């Protein structure tokens, strides 16, 4: 088991290294970083000074190494707009993003998974069709449209809830709902098909034919087996929390990491973009790691092959 863990950690580290390399390559490919960051009409002395400061006149492999070590030391550059450290800038926005994405995640799990399971258990019934229709609606309506519609109805027409800003918890209601609904829809669809696939297996029929009460079959056999692929997609959702928040934060002017990213991209504030890129990669990689570990616990097939070799058989 330890070897398995070590292997996965190595892979995670490798993935992050790839992302860092990607950022470096893309940064260098996109033109002279000095000109990009300083602007095309900056005076030549400023550009030269920038180059010297960033070591841009050194051979490429050395730049890569110093880039890498800078990142390892937590130096991700300064925001162009702000002048402050990119890391600080991003870090202070994280709580705002979490304030939206964590409740949204809870909604996704609490609504999506049970809906999918129920739909699968009552296949082709009215409940199933209703859940599926809602799920498709949730999936095909993009988050910004949903968000704007909610604002239109609840803030503009009905005046119940505020439409933007982040002063009180009431401001968070609409964005959280917007975020949660889309994910719940995807999760419902996925859970349903995972359950359906498990329910179609022979061992379920066998258990039922043996006389095991249906409830026990579902809880004891179907759910645990359907949990395995579901865990993967939940892991993916957790890993892409920030990505989901990007659009919603912009719609509701919520000062989180997502909104920061959009502004940074529009202004080509590369240090901030880079920082957020790494943050997202780290989140995704950690989430995948946890999923892999859970897999090892949940799926006994993996446990056996991962243990020591048992000899000829």
């Amino acid at each position, binding site marked *: 088991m330890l070897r398995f863990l070590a292997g996965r950690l190595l892979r995670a580290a490798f*993935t992050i290294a*790839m*992302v860092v390399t*990607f*950022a470096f390559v*893309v*940064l260098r*490919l*996109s033109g002279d970083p000095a000109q990009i960051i300083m602007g095309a009409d900056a005076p030549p002395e400023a550009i030269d000074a920038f180059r010297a400061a960033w070591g841009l006149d050194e051979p490429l492999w050395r730049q890569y190494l110093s880039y890498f070590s800078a990142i390892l030391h937590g130096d991700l550059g300064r925001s162009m707009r702000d002048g402050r450290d990119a890391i600080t800038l991003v870090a202070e926005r994280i709580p705002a993003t979490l304030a939206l994405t964590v409740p949204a995640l809870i909604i996704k799990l609490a609504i999506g998974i049970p809906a999918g399971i129920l739909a699968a*258990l*009552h*296949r*082709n019934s009215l409940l199933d069709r209703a859940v599926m229709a809602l799920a*498709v*609606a949730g*999936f*095909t*309506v*993009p*988050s*910004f*449209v949903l968000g*704007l*519609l909610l604002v*239109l109805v609840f803030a*503009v027409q009905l005046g119940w809830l505020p439409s933007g800003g982040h002063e009180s918890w009431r401001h968070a209601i609409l964005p959280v709902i917007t975020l949660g609904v889309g994910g719940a829809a995807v999760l419902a669809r*996925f859970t349903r098909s995972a359950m*359906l696939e498990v*329910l*179609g297996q022979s061992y*379920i*029929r066998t258990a*039922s034919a043996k006389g095991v009460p*249906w409830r026990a079959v*579902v809880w004891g056999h179907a759910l645990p087996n359907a949990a395995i692929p579901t865990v993967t997609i939940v892991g993916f959702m957790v*890993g*892409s929390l*920030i*990505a989901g928040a*990007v*659009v919603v934060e*912009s*719609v509701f002017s919520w000062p989180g990491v997502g909104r920061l*990213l*959009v502004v*940074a*991209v*529009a202004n*080509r*504030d*590369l240090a901030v*973009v*880079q920082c*957020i*890129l790494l943050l*997202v*990669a780290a989140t*995704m*990689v950690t989430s*995948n790691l946890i999923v892999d570990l859970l897999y090892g616990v949940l799926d006994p097939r993996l446990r056996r092959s991962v243990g020591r070799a048992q000899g000829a058989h």
Partner: protein
Amino acid sequence: MPEAPFAPAAMDAPQMRRRGVPLPILFALGWLGLMLVVALMADWISPYAYTSLDLRNRLSPPIGLGGTWLHPLGTDELGRDVLARLIYSIRTSLLIAFGATIIGALVGTSLGLLAAHFRGLVEHAVMALVDFSASLPFLILALAVLAFFGNSLVLFICLLGLHAWERYARIARGLAISAAAQGYAAAVRQLGATPWRVHFRHVLPNIASTLIVSMTLAFPEIILLESGLSFLGLGVQPPATSLGSMVGYGREYLTRAPWILLSPAIVIVMTTFAVSLLGDWLRDRLDPTLT
């Protein structure tokens, strides 16, 4: 009461065949057909150019809310006709979505087939790229590239094209490997066929249906991605217009003139819905093994 476990899946299939194409699918096909016609005939059917201004009729509402037939869907803050802009936006968005889907499928399938044919180092390299692709949510990757490279339509389409490439690569590689190991691809190779013949005459046609289903399932994702990015102002840039950017611009006038963003929003939702329905139906018909 939960249904009995012996779900009559086997009975579903023949029923479906006898009924032919179900009604929702017909609607979906109809809608998509309409969208295609609009996109292709934009220059002929649009009442105005999408940039032409009618400053006397700014923010006029659509028919039914007090507007005139001069501007059936209303106008925006510069007096530009919403219907005209909608028509051209449909064309832009569909163009991008088709282009990106095809690029993704081409790149992904080629890499997948290369990986399957050569195995070894090539396969490892491709799988490493697949891993990398899957390690970041595509939106973030796209944003990063847009930040670094700025924005041009060609770059944008290529970028979006890469959104689902690893799915096609995985499918192509998996199916090609299993064909090669024990199946018809090995048999044809043993007949003396060149690798080209094996892949183009045999493997590709066999995996085509799976790939096409994948493409129809990925298409709506690209529409959503493009409209999301355009909404944020990072996708299609003015003077060009797309469905997402129309929503983005209409946002300012949410309270005063909601029709500016409602019509493109409705088109986005309907189109995505139609393609999703079609994709699901195609998948059930052609390749139920895909999730």
